C-alpha cells in the first residue's frame, strides 16, 4: 500500500528566529515500519515530527504522505492519516474531560455522536482507560495521561502514528506497559526518543540526526550497537547492552 508511506525529500526548516533546525533531510518510511528517531538534545527530532502533518511547513523540500504532497491545501487530509503524540501529555489533553478530549478528533472529522462515542470507547479501551472517561485530565497520574493522550490520537484511526518522547517521566512499569501497547499496534510508527532501550524494543529501524542532518539510517540492531557512532551523537549503548 503506497498509502502509508512517509517520504521526506531534501527538507530544510528554519525557525523564524533564524535557527536552522532541519537541513536537507531525506528518507522514506514504508507501510508498517517502526522507525526510531534519535539524536542529542536540540538535534531536531521534535521539529522533524512536526513536519509530518504540516504543523510546521518545510522552508524548502517536499514531504509526501501516501499519495499526497504536503501543502496548505492537503494538510487537513494528511492530518487524518498521521497522528502525532507530543512529548508533554498536558499540552495534548486540552479539553476539560477525558471523554471530550478523545472525542475532539472524531468530532472534527464530522462524525455523528453515536459513531464518535463508539470511537472514543474503542480507543480508551485499547489503552485500558475506559473508566477514566468522565474525569478531568488534571486528576490523572502521569502514566494515565500518556495513555489517554495516545488514545486521543488513536481515536482518529490514523494510518501513521508519530510519537515524541512517549516514556519520559513514566515509572518503569508504566513504561513497560506502554512498550507492550506500542508493540501491538499494526500502524506505521515513528518514535523520537532518548530512551534507546525503548527504541530497540519497538523499532526495527533507526534514524540518527545531528544538528538537523541525518547522519545514519539503518537497522536498529546495527546502529544501536555502533558505539562510535552513538558517542559522536551524544548517545550511548542502550542500557540493557551495557555491562558493568
Amino acid at each position, binding site marked *: 500500500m503506497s498509502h502509508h508511506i512517509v517520504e521526506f525529500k531534501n527538507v530544510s526548516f528554519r525557525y523564524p528566529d533564524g535557527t536552522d533546525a532541519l537541513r536537507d533531510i531525506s528518507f522514506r518510511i514504508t507501510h508498517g515500519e517502526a522507525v526510531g528517531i534519535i539524536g542529542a538534545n536540540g538535534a531536531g527530532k521534535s521539529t522533524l515530527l*512536526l513536519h509530518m*502533518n*504540516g*504543523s510546521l511547513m518545510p522552508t524548502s523540500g517536499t514531504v509526501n504522505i501516501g499519495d499526497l504532497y504536503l501543502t496548505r491545501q492537503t494538510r*487537513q487530509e494528511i*492530518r*487524518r492519516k*498521521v*497522528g*502525532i503524540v*507530543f512529548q*508533554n501529555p*498536558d*499540552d*495534548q*489533553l*486540552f*479539553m*476539560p*474531560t477525558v*471523554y*471530550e478530549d478523545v*472525542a*475532539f*478528533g472524531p*468530532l*472534527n*472529522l464530522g462524525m455523528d*455522536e453515536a459513531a*464518535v462515542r463508539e470511537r472514543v470507547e474503542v480507543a480508551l479501551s485499547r489503552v485500558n482507560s475506559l473508566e477514566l472517561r*468522565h*474525569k*478531568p*485530565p*488534571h*486528576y490523572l497520574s502521569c502514566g494515565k495521561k500518556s495513555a489517554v493522550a495516545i488514545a*486521543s*490520537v488513536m481515536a*482518529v484511526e490514523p494510518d501513521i502514528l508519530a510519537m515524541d518522547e512517549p516514556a519520559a517521566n513514566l515509572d518503569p512499569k508504566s513504561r513497560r506497559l506502554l512498550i507492550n501497547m506500542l508493540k501491538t499496534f499494526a500502524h506505521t510508527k515513528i518514535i523520537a526518543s532518548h530512551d534507546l532501550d525503548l527504541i530497540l524494543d519497538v523499532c526495527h529501524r533507526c534514524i540518527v540526526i545531528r544538528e538537523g542532518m541525518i547522519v545514519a539510517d539503518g537497522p536498529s540492531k546495527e546502529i544501536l550497537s555502533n558505539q562510535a557512532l552513538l558517542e559522536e551523537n551524544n548517545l550511548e549503548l542502550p542500557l540493557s547492552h551495557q555491562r558493568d
Partner: protein
Amino acid sequence: MTFDKEYYNIGLLDRLSYQNTFVHRLDPRIKLIATLLYLFTVISFSKYEVVELFPFFLYPVLLITLGEIPLLFIIKKVVLVSPFAIFVGIFNPFLDTGRVVLMQELTISAGWISFFSILVKFTLTVSTALLLVTTTSFPGVCHALRQLGVPSLFVSQLLFLYRYIFVLMEETMRIVRARDMRSYGRRGTGIRIFVRLVGILFLRTVERAERIYYAMLSRGFQGDMPTLKRFRITASDLGFAAFVIAFLFIFRFYPVSEELGRFVQGVF
C-alpha cells in the same frame, strides 16, 4: 505558603464539583439560572431588611447537605473574602444614626441594621456562588453558558482557561518554591525578581500555547471547537426549578419571619 493554600483551595473546590449527588446531577443550566435568580432576589431587599433575609439561608443549607459539601470549607471561604464588604459597610453604623426601637427601651442606630443586612446578604450571595461551582463542574457551567447563548468563542477559551489553570499553577508553584528556596527569608521576593518570574512564566505560557495549538491541529482542528450535546432536562430538574421559583416567590413577598414571630407571641 499563601500560594500553596490558594492553589489547594481551587483544587478542593474543583474536586467537590465532580461528586455524584442529587444536586450534582441536576442540569447545569437550571442550577445557573436558579443561582442568578436567587442572588437577584436576595439583593433586591432594601438595606434595612434583615430578618426577612433569614429564610433564604434554607437554599444554601439544602445545597450543602444534599450536595455533601463541607460546611466549614464554605464558611472559611466566606470569611476569607469578607474584608471589602466589611470595609464598605462598617461606616454605616456611624453615618446613619437614625434610632431604631428594638424593644421597649432598647434602641440602636439604623446603620447597624443596614450593616448587618450587608453582612447577611454577603454571606448568602458568596456562599451560593461557591455552592454553584462546588455542585456543578466548571465545564458544566461553561456548556450551560454556551447553550444559554454566550458566544462559543468566548466559552471555548474559558474552557481552555479552566483546563490550564491547574497546569500553570503547578508550574508557578514550582518556580515560586525555587525562588523561596534560595532567598533565605531575605525577600528575594522583591518586585524585580517578581517581574522576572512573571516574564519567564509568560514566555513559557506562550510556548505552551504553541504546543497546544500543534496538538489541536494534529487532531483536525480547523477553527471551530466541536461540542457534544449532552444535557437533557429530567423530571428532577423540573422539580428543582419549580421548588426554587416557589421558594423565592414566597420568601420574597411574604414576611415569614415576622408572621412567625407574631404567631409565637400570640401563643404565649
